[in-house]
């Protein structure tokens, strides 16, 4: 019925979410001390007595976490203001104001697209009494009582200080878990070896670089013509998909292999698939990892176009690959 009505009355179309037109937070990542996590990731696994947790012991095991945001703002030439806060997240991924909120960091950000040496906004969360308070609050708010891990979050706000109500928000989940099950190991962020690319079956090299980075011997910006279709395929190392043990309600554990998803974004053009990888859909379709990006037509002059690939696992692990392709008319 909804379909029939949509056809009869004209369906609405909105802007393409894979094309970054204006101010957006594209990704947030978190990194931990490799000694603690066995790699960089969003999760810490510690020894804790759930019946009688000892705050001092918990604090002693926790390590600093650095959280960074990736911001894009292609439509404007301006500096931005940013702020990060740590808190228990509500259903809307904003800080639940019924619980304590810690300001993690703030500052000004050079125009993310124009600046030659961009310093992305990052802040470090140090283990202290304030974090312990948030963890306690998170345990109280978590019905599973920390069996799956104590979840909290970092909320990032970015705005133009000169324009009221111009804020955009993003949230990144973090987790502290006990060794439940005993075999539990902290998740690390996923990664890829490189991005395989081709235009009409002819391979091109995709650098890990911003469009405003100065070209050097190590990379050059690949060039395509308007309307060309660029095939993009992430090449994963064998160890990219971790195996982990998820706790069950009966007190046991289930061994699961991570699934990795890829989100594709660009400042212009269009993608055949905006999200690839991931699990099966409801029909059993296993989507391909790669996608196709069609370069925009009708440009008046050669234009460098940013492309981002966000790689994620289901345990809050995130990594980002940013690249640039020059499109000639």
């Amino acid at each position, binding site marked *: 019925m909804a379909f029939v009505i949509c056809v009869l009355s004209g369906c609405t179309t909105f802007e393409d979410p894979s094309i970054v037109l204006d101010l957006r937070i594209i990704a947030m990542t978190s990194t931990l001390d490799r000694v603690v996590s066995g790699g960089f990731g969003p999760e810490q696994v510690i020894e804790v007595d759930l019946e009688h947790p000892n705050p001092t012991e918990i604090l002693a095991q926790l390590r600093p976490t650095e959280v960074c945001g990736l911001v894009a703002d292609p439509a404007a030439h301006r500096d931005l203001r940013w702020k990060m806060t740590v808190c228990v997240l509500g259903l809307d991924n904003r800080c639940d104001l019924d619980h304590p909120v810690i300001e993690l960091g703030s500052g000004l950000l050079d125009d993310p697209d124009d600046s030659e040496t961009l310093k992305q906004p990052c802040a470090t969360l140090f283990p202290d009494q304030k974090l312990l308070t948030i963890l306690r609050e998170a345990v109280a708010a978590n019905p599973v009582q920390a069996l799956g891990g104590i979840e909290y979050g970092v909320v990032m706000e970015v705005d133009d200080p000169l324009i009221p109500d111009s804020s955009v928000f993003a949230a990144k989940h973090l987790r502290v878990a006990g060794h439940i099950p005993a075999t539990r190991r902290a998740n690390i962020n996923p990664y890829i070896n490189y991005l395989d690319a081709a235009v009409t079956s002819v391979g091109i090299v995709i650098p890990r670089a911003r469009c405003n980075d100065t070209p050097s011997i190590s990379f050059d910006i690949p060039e395509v013509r308007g309307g060309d279709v660029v095939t993009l395929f992430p090449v994963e190392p064998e160890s990219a998909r971790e195996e982990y043990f998820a706790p069950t309600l*009966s007190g046991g554990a289930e061994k699961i292999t991570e699934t990795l998803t890829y989100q594709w974004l660009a400042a212009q053009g269009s993608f055949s698939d905006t999200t690839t990888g991931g699990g099966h859909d409801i029909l059993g379709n296993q989507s391909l990892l790669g996608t196709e990006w069609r370069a925009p037509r009708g440009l008046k002059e050669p234009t460098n176009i940013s492309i981002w690939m966000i790689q994620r696992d289901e345990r809050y692990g995130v990594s980002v690959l940013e690249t640039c392709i020059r499109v000639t008319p």
Partner: protein
Amino acid sequence: MSRWYLAIVLIAIWSPRAIADDVRAPDAPPPAKKVNVVTRQPKLLQAVAPEYPPAALAANKTAKVKVRIKIDAAGLVSAVDVIEKVGDGFDEAAVAAALQYIFEPAEIDGVAAPITVETTINFVIEKVEEPEPPIKKPTTAEPQAGPPNHAGNMLLPVTIEGTVVERGTRRKLGGVIVSVVELGLDAVTAEDGSFKFHGVDAGSYKILASDPKFDRLERPITLAKREAVEVRLWMRPKGGNPYETVVEGDREVLEVTRRTLQRQQLTSVPGTFGDPIRVLQTLPGMQRAPFGLGLLLVRGSNPDDTGIYVDGHEVPSLFHFLGGPSIFNVEMLESIDLYPGGFPARFGRHHGGAVALELRPTKSDGIHGAAKVDFIDTGGYLRAPITKDLSFAVAGRRSYIDAFLGFVLPKPSKGGQRIVTPVYYDYSGRLDYNLHENGRFSLFAIGSSDTLHVLDQNPDSAVSTNLNTSVKFFRIIGSYVRPFGDDLKLTISPAWGRDTLSFSGAQAEASGPFTSIGVVNSNLSYRARIAGRLSKRLYIDTGLDVLSRITSYQALIPIDDSLINTNGVDIPPSKVFRGVSSLGMGLHLDLGVDVTAKLKLVPSLRLDSYVIDGQDRGSVDPRIVGRYQLGKDFTLKAYIGEFSQPPQPEAVDVRFGNPNVGVEHATHFGLGYEWKPDRLWSIDSEIYYVRRRNLVVFSPDIVQNDDGTFSNVNFLNEGRRNSYGFEVLVKREISEHAFGWLSYTFSRSHQRSHPGLPYIATAFDQPHVMNAVASWKPGRGFELGARFQLASGRPDTPVLGATFDADSGEYVPVRGERNSVRIPLFTQLDVRAEKMWLYQTWSLGLYIDIINVTNAVNTEATQYDYRYRESAPVSSFPFLPTLGLRGTW
């Protein structure tokens, strides 16, 4: 010599005296100021013979009843008052008869106008000397008086006989007065339309047939010597359209509010696609369902809270899926009753409202049928006798939307394939065996099927689709009805049914499904009911009601509900088999007590016991209804009662539900009145309050078990919902030219899902709902109708912004207070025009039904872009005409 008596009623004495204060007779002296002049007296076109009160007849009593008759500008009687009461039942009989008179209207200043007249109806008993038999001597076995459809000298042979039938439908018409004008002989046709005149001599005569609902029919006949003639009188309905009314006088009122739709109202209301069940949605107490869906939203309740009963047996749904038409063919239905609250105890296991469909018995009165064709589907109905007492009816319908979809859908890319085939069909059949004084046996079966197959394959994409959805429904209902004495009736009715729902999804290339769900409900129910009048003051409706249901689920789904957190985890599908068995037994009793001539109380009790998956549950629901006749046309009514509803099968499942959830309860309160200012108009109004408690609500909580493991709670009896409102229905009954109603409902409904949480508006809360329905027959077979709907928008939750979830890549909306805003007001005007051609044995109707004739943009929901910055309304139906053809014979 034996004598016999003929009770006759003299009504032809017609010397009316017009009464109108501001009207003067034509010959009166001119007044100082202008007054209106009666330029034509009303003329009696048709009288109806009153029934002689049996007791008075037995006592040999006669009477003269003076009555004052109010005649409207159309010549119809709007009210009758007895001027001097004579008692013995004569007054009531006179009023009942006079109400059926038809006049040529009076004219005042040359214009048809209402007027009041006085006349006398005489009841006399005429002694008739037994005539000498011309041929043979009558025996004592011969009747002393002929039945009403016989006239003339009963001892002489029948020389003129015939049948009165409706033109277009061949329906045999009872109660029509047939006269041999020259002889002054009148007969009133029997139920089978037959009439007989005895002993009419050879000659030429004029036969006159008259009935208020039909055009007067005159037909000349010539009768030769020693000859008998048989005639068939085809009567044309007034206005050119056949219509019929349902006589409700013999239905006992055991409830406060019952809104009944008559057969003509079921198919000719604009904007309902000729769908009888959708017409219910125009009545007071019903909230508007979004997108024209067939949801029954009664007084703030959820759709599942309203029970749907077919001849007393519960059915899960009335509609084909995705907003399709109702499953029931209108020709199979006798009536549809909506009980928005305080309903009788025989309807159990629901605490919202009740919708009762009464099936139409078949008759051995010839072969009849109906067919309908429009853009969406086509269907037909056939009724025929097998023997004199055995008859059957069958009906069926099939859609052909699939044939048109190909033109609307986007074409697949080269080498690809796209098939979308939504198909629905339904069928029903009924067999009736008339056992006469031993009752009636019937067997009714109905089934429907909705299937949707989607196949989408694109060589350029790794993703393909093969979806199969199927919803099927079947019921078979047996019924044996046996009368006991004059008023008591026993009904025994078993039923069996099966409802299946299945979905399977796979890649187009796959050999089997990747995901599937199958739900099968097998129902066995049994009802035994005794209803009728025990004494002059006591009416009883009691019985037993058993429902056994086995629900089984079979699924192939990617779910692992033992994992603490399954977000984003790719779990391969696994097979799930679940089942729930339930047995419900109910005893119901409604006792109608006429405490005084004006006060009626109906105490009721319903006892229910359930065994669901081995666990006992029960409910005791006492209720009382009171009706007090404050005036001749004005009745006050009130009720209070308990209603209960068992939890849905999935809510008590050991794995996915909570086996400990109990029965939901509600208390209904209501107070209202019914006012019938005249024969055609009525006003029914009521204020109500419904308090629902122990509602089953979802809970995300996890609890620790005694053994240290954890479990999902899933469902709890913690919900509460309160509804209150005011309803009014102003209705004009079906008449020769028009029918219609105006319904208005003010309603508020708030709910609380868990203790401590605030009450918020429910998803379907609509403070104001108004429906105006009007249908007019200008004549020559035309019928024009319109429906105007106005309804408050449903509650909505505002979106204040969004947060990018960096771990999923999706935006999460930041919502304001739940259900704190409303979508805009809904207004829609639908119109319908039909032209009917009446032929001797059949009729043909061509209609156009236009939904939203003004093309108003009505918001049903709001859609957002990926980051919730932009929004657009999801609109309801645009201007949508439907052309159709229907015929009956």
